[in-house]
């Protein structure tokens, strides 16, 4: 296997992380909706925490994307 093929396979493997992070983001918003529909009065006060959870879950997917880009273009 030459280097270019290995790079492309590695970048594809790193892209799995982006998909997994999407599951995480969906879980964050889904759980928030579950809680918010049970107690709508408290929902607005928790929006900051919602976005902190969203940011933490999203960051890992973005890091996976950055790893794929590094493998493809920088290594």
């Amino acid at each position, binding site marked *: 296997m030459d280097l270019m093929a290995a790079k492309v396979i590695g970048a594809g493997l790193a892209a799995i992380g982006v998909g997994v992070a999407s599951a995480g983001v969906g879980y964050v918003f889904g759980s928030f909706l579950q809680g918010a529909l049970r107690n709508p009065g408290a929902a607005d006060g928790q929006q*900051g925490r919602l*976005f*902190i959870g*969203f*940011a933490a879950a*999203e*960051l890992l997917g*973005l*890091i996976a*994307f*950055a790893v794929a*880009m590094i493998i493809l*273009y920088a290594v």
Partner: protein
Amino acid sequence: MAAEAGKIDPMHQFQIDAVGGGALDGTPFVFTNSALWMLVVLSAIFLFMWGGMKRELVPGRWQAAVESFVEFVSGMTLSSIGSEGRKYTPWIFTIFIFIIFSNFMGMMPLAIIPGLHPFTVTSQFTITGLMAIMSFSIVLIVGFWKHGFHFFTLFLPHGTPAPLMPLIFLVELISFLVRPFSLALRLFVAMIAGHILLEVFGNFIVNGLNSGSALGYGVSLISFVFIVGVNALELLVCAIQAYVFALLASLYINDAVNLH
């Protein structure tokens, strides 16, 4: 823009060039497209704020828009930092409005004017990293100024068992030091990813139309429908990323001010 037909080069849009075709390595003082678009963003912010600062008793639409921006940010700092949050509102407002304006400027379809290439300022790690480092410096300076060496208790939550103390301290220290990187990385990678996606599918449309076959036209149509949806999503992401950056910066400042 693809250099030749069929070859997609999504990273070219992030390249920094000298405006007017000078060399980048001749002198450190080169007016680049990044600097040009920062000036564009700055003048847009200036126009927006200037139009809304007439201090009329009954605010018009424009003033109401500016006031809702300011109230949004000051409400965010007050709710996350507390009564001392008012002092930090100017910095949080500065980064929030700069990020949201430059994100939206990069999304504008200005490339339909020939020769004009919109440049997303926030897709460069130097810009986002600088804003993250300045927020982090505020955290460090305020923390050590207000609490002295008590600031280190930030790394040891109350009631930590003595055997675990070194481990917890290490973990908390690392998570504290990683903050500026994660703050900067999130914004710049989100912008880069969105623009690469738009570029790739935009090229699918053009290449499909150039191919002249029925399959190509079908691919173009599907890509066009897809890209309209992705554009709407990107506008949402632009606003969310600006909000998240400002929110996390104010939360980190809260750690320094109130020491949990």
